[in-house]
């Protein structure tokens, strides 16, 4: 049962050939085996959202999936947001609105917001707040996170 299996994960378009036990969660495989430590593991049981990534474009909790379930899927993490030296609009907006302090929760919030704004650039305020209540932040008090995401949404609406 502890036997390791070979699999290939595609993280931000890059293929990683790894060898893991079936019980290895996706978040642990992304961090330990693919070396992409931007995705954070907080509660490791689905409550905090720090580990949120995009799986085939949908936000999911990567602590609640096993890596072995994700071969051949398109995995997107915070490392894939920026375009070279140019930050993603959400990343810049988080800086501009002081939407992070310690930064532990930030990758999860960014991936959650990035996934949803791509599908729903016109999401309403009430729904947006409900959506962001999915993830926990122990520093900011949420108001600035909401402001930062709203600002990007409003920018998209103008564009």
């Amino acid at each position, binding site marked *: 049962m502890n036997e390791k299996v070979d699999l290939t994960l595609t993280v931000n378009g890059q293929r990683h050939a790894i060898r893991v036990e079936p019980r290895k969660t996706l978040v642990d495989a992304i961090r330990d085996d693919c070396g992409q430590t931007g995705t954070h593991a907080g509660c490791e049981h689905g409550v905090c*959202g720090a580990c949120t990534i995009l799986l085939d474009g949908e936000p999911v909790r990567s602590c609640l999936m096993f890596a072995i379930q994700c071969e051949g899927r398109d995995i997107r993490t915070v490392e894939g947001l920026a375009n070279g030296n140019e930050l993603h609009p959400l990343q810049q907006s988080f800086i501009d609105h002081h939407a992070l302090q310690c930064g532990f929760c930030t990758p999860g919030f960014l991936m959650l917001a990035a996934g949803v704004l791509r599908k729903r650039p016109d999401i309403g305020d009430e729904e947006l707040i409900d959506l962001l209540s999915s993830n926990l932040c122990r520093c900011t008090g949420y108001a600035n996170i909401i402001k930062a995401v709203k600002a990007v949404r409003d920018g998209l609406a103008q564009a």
Partner: protein
Amino acid sequence: MKPAPFKYHRPTTLDEALAILAEVAEEDGRILAGGQTLVPMMALRLAYPPHLVDINAIPELARTRVEDGRLAIGALVRHADLQAPLGCPPLDGLLAEVASHIAHYPIRTRGTFCGSLANADPASEWCLVAATLGAEFVIRSADGTRSVGVEDYFQGVMATAIGPGEMLVEARLPLLPADSLWGFYEFSRRAGDFALGMALATLRLEGGVVGEARIGVGGAEEHPRRIAEAEAALVGRAPDEAAFRAAAAKAAAVIDPLEDHATDGTYRRELVETVVRRALSAAMAHRQARPRTEIEARS
């Protein structure tokens, strides 16, 4: 916080899955559906199944279909799939509204309708829907298929008619008649938390009075169920505040409330009174109910 080791199976057909289940059931081999309950339990070491039978690679289980006056929901249909229109109003509107109260969006993209029914948490919204509307549960094993009615399905806190080696392959919900009014109300401490109390009501009016009523309560007892006494208090009366209060008071009086360190029986009864009354008012208020969110309307 790391799950214990297990052997992983990834069947690609239902028959293959049932054959593996038959082999591993005795050792507590489990189905892995959305994993949004099972994986946290494994991380907390409250569950350590030696085998996981992952059903996510069986596309035939991911379908909904309307047939013989019922909406059939396969074992891999996710909570978020039910937030999009399914072409069977008003039932699909009811499902979309209820789905928006289950956990949070990133959990709804994975967790399944049938997984919720199999898990049978007392506060599961889908169990409330199944109990109130009268679902039929299609259960299969390597030995064959059986169909279980709602009266026999729920057997206690997280206990159902599903036996070892069996899979809930599909749940069938009766469609709602076009003139049905429905209302749902849930109370939880924070958005996305499990409900402390919730109610679902469907009504049909005939000549200005309530002709048919279904009132289901969840989160308050061992499993969600219809409250016949509350329904009887409503039928034949005009659908007004006084009638709703009478029905809600009946529901509060007859339940056998769950109690925990934070919530005693008195609190749960009062909560049931409130959620039933508000579900009934919601049924009258949003006759043309629209889903609260369309994030998940898949492109």
